[in-house]
């Protein structure tokens, strides 16, 4: 399940459903779990992934050709949540594929497939609010994002609907580039903590062990996605899992 406040940092990683292909997804996820990753996003590939960087954009492009879809994601979720009962799977998707599927139906089917959380970058909190009773009933956590430029009153509103954890966008910009973890960042984290007791998942720009060390003691979760997908693309899922294991060791995050 999701960590709780002040838990030791853990890494969340990623699968783009259909990248490099549907079969390989299962193997790659098994590898991640084996390496010690317990939070895994299953990303529904989309034709217009506006909030992703180049690595994930290209992975989506390829995944669609391999049959990546909402249905394929639910099918994968069902398998991997059964095979890895101690891992937590989060469905990540842009809104349109879910909207076309039917949001209510999707929430129900996702819950049935073992999904515990939901990241939808282009679905603002206002759109989530009407669904909160349903989501709470199904036990699905909307993992909402806050960013450095989100004003306090809006952080407050987001915190009200957020469940599981809050996804803290580390800086202005999109996934896949370098970020600094300096004073300004700590002030930002402090500001968010003043609105919520939920654990914080920091995302965007986490590329190596040094980043993880820097976040240890500051956040509960670090999203390590783009770099993992790069490993997967260039060296295959087995090597990517090995890299992940080494990374966790380097960052003193192995169990």
């Amino acid at each position: 399940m999701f960590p709780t406040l002040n838990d030791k940092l853990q890494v969340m990683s990623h699968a783009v459903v259909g990248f490099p292909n549907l079969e390989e997804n299962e193997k790659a996820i098994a590898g991640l779990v084996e390496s010690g990753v317990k939070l895994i996003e299953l990303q529904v590939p989309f034709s217009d992934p506006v909030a992703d960087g180049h690595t994930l954009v290209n992975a989506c492009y390829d995944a669609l050709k391999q049959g990546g879809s909402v249905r394929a994601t639910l099918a994968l979720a069902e398998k991997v949540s059964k095979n890895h009962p101690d891992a937590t799977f989060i469905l990540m998707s842009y809104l349109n594929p879910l909207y076309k599927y039917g949001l209510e139906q999707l929430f129900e089917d996702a819950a049935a497939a073992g999904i515990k959380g939901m990241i939808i970058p282009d679905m603002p909190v206002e759109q989530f609010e009407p669904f909160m009773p349903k989501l709470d009933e199904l036990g699905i956590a909307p993992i909402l994002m806050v960013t450095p430029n989100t004003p306090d009153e809006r952080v407050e509103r987001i915190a009200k609907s957020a469940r599981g954890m809050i996804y803290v966008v580390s800086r202005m910009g999109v996934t896949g580039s370098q970020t600094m973890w300096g004073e300004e960042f700590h002030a930002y984290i402090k500001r968010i903590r003043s609105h919520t007791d939920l654990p914080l998942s920091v995302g965007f720009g986490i590329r190596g062990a040094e980043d993880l060390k820097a976040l240890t003691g500051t956040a509960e979760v670090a999203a390590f996605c783009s770099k993992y997908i790069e490993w997967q693309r260039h060296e295959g899922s087995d090597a990517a899992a090995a890299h992940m294991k080494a990374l966790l060791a380097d960052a003193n995050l192995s169990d």
Partner: protein
Amino acid sequence: GYFGEFGGRYVPEILLPALTELEDMFFALRDDPTFWQEYLTLTQEFSGRPTPLTPLRRLSKELGGAQIWLKREDLNHSGAHKVNNVLGQGLLVQRMGKKRVIAETGAGQHGLATAIMAARLGLDATIYMGADDIERQYSNVFWMRQLGSKVVGVETGARTLKEALDEALRDWAGSVENTHYVLGTACGPAPFPELVSYFQGVISQEIKQQAMAQIGRLPDEIVACVGGGSNAMGAFGAFLEDDKVGLVGVEAGGLSFKEGEHSVRLLPDTATPGIAQGYKTLFLQNEDGQLGDTHSIAAGLDYVGVSPILAHLTQTGRVTPESAQDHEVTDAFKLLMKTEGIIPALESSHALAGGFKRAKTMRPDQHIVINLSGRGDKDIFNIARAFPQPEWSDFLQRESERAKELFEATQGEK
């Protein structure tokens, strides 16, 4: 920000502050008559507005139906209606105190208009363009660079407009504090559909005045092509409450109604409601919600979504959707050139095709205004592709060799 069920603002959290800032400023200025006057002055002194309403006497007679008038957006500075919106947003940028603009562009028209505005107002500009589009539309890249803009090729995905738009949004996510994203059409997250329609509304305000002066009454119909929908919203805007004025939007019928061979979104059995690129509208998409492939002979109509305002106005019946296929478009293009001496853009030729067809069914005492959104000579490469002939490829071959020699000569000099 909603129009019936369409519109809204479905964007990553990081973009929200910029959009609300823009919306607040827009709503404040929209009600300020001095701002509209400032805008009109800029379009007049820089872009030559008002553009004329040209009677097509010979063509109307030849077709034997309604009297046809052209609203001449082709006479704008930069050769299309695009510049209206861009100049308006430029004024907003100045009010917001931002110093940098970004834009996405497909065939290059909106990028060129943005580059022009940025040069005029002294702003930095970065234009995102799919790498394949850069390769195919190099002439516009040439102009944008001469105008001082940075043109960035986008290598992801299909390397065309969609990827360029996504990339521009990514830039914006990291630069919102000093950067304005100049959206080119009446689509995207609120307030863009309203904002772009507001500035383009100058077209229909002029049509109204000109029709009263030149016809003596309002026209019976107004016809515009519909890509994203900005020129149509511009041509229709001031007439929405004038129920007797028919409003007709002509989409790109392409080669056929088969999937991927057209860009028709407003007719039945084409697009379906979806939420993408920051807003809700009718998108061409598959049952899994993946946006579809489109085709049009006119690069500017080759778009998968459509203005949420037009989607709504079509559902309420206020706007009548039509489509024109590629071959009808090239016929209308030729007819206008030969009969009236005006070179239309291929985009605008869709409006001509639809308008001519309707005019034929009307009476000579009726009046139809077609919005000529742009001129064709800015796009000779695209038009030459629509009318293939060996003289053109031979000319390009020779010119390529000459250009190479000229470049080598400059290298020798240094």
